[in-house]
C-alpha cells in the first residue's frame, strides 16, 4: 500500500466516523427527550420515532461521502494507483461531510428534542415539528454535496 491510498483511506474513515458520531449523538439527545414523553403517553411512540430518526441522516451522509471516495479509488473493485497529493486531496474532500455531519447531527438532535416537546403538547402540529430540525440538516446536505463535487473533481 502506498501513501496516497493510505491518505485517501483516512479520508474515508473521517467522513464515516464524524458523520456517524454526529448522528449517534443527535439521535441520543432526541431519544432521551422522546423516552421522557413516552413515560407519559406511550401511544406517541410512532410519531416520536420519526423525530428521533431525523438526526440519523448525517451518519448516512458520512457513509455516503466515504463510499464515494472508495468508489473513486476503486477500493472494492481493484485499486488504481493514487499519488500522495491526490490522496491528500481526497482526505480534505472528506472533511466537509464529516465536520458538518458531526456538528449538525448534534444540533439537529437538540432541535428534534425541542420538536418532541412540541408534539408532546400538541400532537396535531407534527408537520411543523418535523420541518424545524430539517432546517439544521440543510448544512449537512451541503457538506455532502461539497464532498461529492470535490471528489469527482479530483484527478487521480
Amino acid at each position, binding site marked *: 500500500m502506498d501513501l496516497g491510498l493510505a491518505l485517501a483511506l483516512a479520508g474515508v474513515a473521517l467522513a464515516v466516523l464524524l458523520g456517524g458520531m454526529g448522528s449517534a449523538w443527535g439521535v441520543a439527545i432526541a431519544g432521551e427527550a422522546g423516552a421522557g414523553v413516552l413515560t407519559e403517553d406511550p401511544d*406517541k411512540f410512532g410519531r416520536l420515532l420519526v423525530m428521533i430518526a431525523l438526526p440519523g441522516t448525517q451518519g448516512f451522509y458520512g457513509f455516503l461521502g466515504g463510499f464515494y471516495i472508495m468508489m473513486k479509488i476503486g477500493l472494492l473493485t481493484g485499486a488504481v494507483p493514487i499519488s500522495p497529493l491526490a490522496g491528500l486531496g481526497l482526505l480534505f474532500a472528506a472533511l466537509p461531510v464529516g465536520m458538518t455531519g458531526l456538528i449538525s447531527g448534534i444540533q439537529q438532535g437538540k432541535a428534534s428534542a425541542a420538536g418532541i416537546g412540541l408534539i408532546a403538547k400538541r400532537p396535531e402540529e407534527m408537520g411543523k415539528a418535523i420541518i424545524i430540525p430539517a432546517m439544521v440538516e*440543510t448544512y449537512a*446536505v451541503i457538506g455532502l454535496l461539497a464532498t461529492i463535487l470535490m471528489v469527482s473533481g479530483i484527478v487521480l
Partner: protein
Amino acid sequence: MSVVEMEKVNIVSLKSHKDAVLKCLKDCELVEMQSIKEVESETISAQELGKYEFDLAEIKSALSFLEEIMQKKKSFIEGFIPPKEEISEDDLINTAKTFNLSAALDQIKGLETRLSNLKNLENELHSELAKLLPWKKLDTPLDTLTPTPHTNLALGSIKNKHFASLKAELDKISPAAIIDTINTTKESTYLLFVFLKEDSKLWLDTLSKWEFIPADLPHSPKTPVAEISHVHDLLAKTKLETDEVLLEAKNLGQELTKLKYMYDFILDKKLTLETQQKLTDTNYAFVISGWIRKRDLDKLKNKLNQVTNEFDVLAVAPAKGETAPVALKNAKIFSPFELITMIYGAPNAKEFDPSVVLSFFFALFFGICLGDFFYGIILSLVSIYFLKKYKLPKGGQELFELLLLGGIVASVVGILTGSYLGFTPADLPSAVLPIKNFLTSIQIIDPIKNPLTMLVFSLALGVIQILFGIILQMIERIRAKQYISAILDDGLWLFFLSSLVYLIVASALSLTSAGVATYMSIGGAAALVLTQGRHKKGIIQKFLSGLLSLYKVSGYMGDTLSYSRLLALGMSSTIIASVINILGGMVRTVPVLGIVLMIVILIVGHFFNILIATLSAFVHSTRLQMVEFFSKFYEGGGKEFRPFKREAEYTRLK
C-alpha cells in the same frame, strides 16, 4: 387554486327544536359555530360539565388499567392510526342506556386497588424474606433472644474485612463474652453477641465503630427457618390471590368495548353541552351563529327541513375586522397537496390557495429525492394498501395520496436516471440485451457519473420556482390593485434576476449575447437602486436604502443553492441502494448460508433505505416549498374551517 367562499349565517329556530337542530348540524358537518360575543350566552351548568369530565377521566384510567391487564399491545401502525370500531348510533345509545357505568367503574377500581394492595404486600414479604434469610442457621426461636438480668445481646452483621479487627478489640474488652458467627456471605458476617451488661456501653461503641448493622428481625416464637417457610406460604397465597384478581379483570374484557362506547357517548354529550354555550336564547327561540361554505347553504336548509320547518337561515354580514375561516377545495388530483399548505398555515383572507402551484414542484422534488424506479413503485403500492385497508383521518389520507403521487414520479425519475433498486441498466446481463439497450436508451442522465450536470439541473429548478414565486407575488399585488409595488418591486426584481440568470448562462456557454445580458443586469440593478428606497425620506436615504436592497441578491442566491439538496438526496438514496447490493453480493460467497444472508441483507437494507429516503424526500421537498417558495409570495395565518361534528376516540358511526 381556490379558497372556498364562506358565508356567515344565523340559524334561528324554536327552543323546543333545539336538540334536534343541534343534532342535525352535528351530523351534517357543515357549520362552524361561533359564540355571539355581545349577547350574554346561556349559562350552562358548570357542575354538569365537570361531571362529564370526571367520568371521562375515570373511564380513561379504567380502560388503561384493563388494557394493561389484557396485554393488548397496539401495533406500530395502530399507534399512528388508532383503530375505530364501527357501530350504529342506535346501538351506541342502547349500550349507553343499559350500561351501568358507575358499577363497572367501581368494580374495576376495586380490582385495581386489590391488585395494588397485593403488590405492596408481596414487596413487604420479599423484604421480610431478605431480612430473615441470612439468619437461617440460627436455630433458636426468635423471641428467646432477649437480655437476661446480667447479660445483654446483639444480633447483626458487619463487613467481612472488619471482622478480625472487631473480634480482636472485643476480646480485649471482655474475653468471656460470646461471639457466635451465624453465617458468612461474600460481603458480610452475621454475628450473635452476648456480653455483660456492665460492659454494654463500651461494647456497643466498639460495635458501631466497626459499622455494625443491627439485625431487624420479627419478634416471633418461631425459629428463623420456620419463619421463612411461613413467609413463603404467605407469598404463595398472595400469588394465588393476584392470579384470581387478574383472571377476574380479564373476564371484564367485554366491558372494555362497552366502556369505550361509553367514553364516546359521554364525550359527545360534553361536546353538545359546550356547544349550547355558543347559542343565544330568547324566551321561545334560539340563535346559532356560524360560518358555512356558501355552496352548502341549500344543503343545510334541506337537512334542517327534514327535522323541522320552523327555522330560518339568515346570511349576515361579518362584523368589522372579522375574517372568515378558510376551507380549501381543489380538484381531486391536487387536494393531497393541501396538506403541505395546511402544515404551513391556511391562507389568510387576501391570499389564494397555493396548493396547486406547489403541487408540481413538490411531486417533482419528491421524485428526484427518492429517485429510484422500484422504490417509487414500492412506495406507491404501500400507499395504495394503506388507503384501501385503513379508514384514515383527512390528514393521513392526504399524506398517503401524496406518497402515492410522489412514488409514481420517483419511478419515472428512476427510469430517466437509470436507477433500478440501486442497479443501473449497465449492470444487466447481456442475456437480456434488448431490455438493456432499451433501458439505456431512455436513460437521459447518470447523476453519479455526472453530478455537475445534475447539480445544474437542480439549481435550474430552483431558479424556475423562485422566479415563479415572484410572478405569483406580482399577480397577487395586481389583483389587490397595488400596481406600483407590483411593477417596481416584483417586476424589477423579476427582470433583474432573470437577466442575471441569463448572464450566467450566456457566459457559461460563451454566447455572444453575454454583453447584452450584462447591460440588462446593470440596468436592472440601477433601476432597483433608484426605486427600492422610494418609501424613505430625503434623497440620500432613498439612495442608500436602494443600494442596500441589492443585498437581497445574496438571499436569492442562497435560496437557489438550497435546491442543490435535490441532487444530494437523490444520489444518497441511489448510492446507498447500490451499497446494499454490493454488501449482498459480498455475503453471497459465504458457503451454505450465503444465499440466505444475501436475501436478508437485501430485504432489510432496501426496506430501511426506502424508509429513510422517503422521510428525507418528504421533509426536504416540504421545506423547499415553505422556506424558498412561500417566502416569495405567501404568508398564511388564516384560520382553518372546523365544522361542528361528532368527536369520538374509539368508535365511528355507521
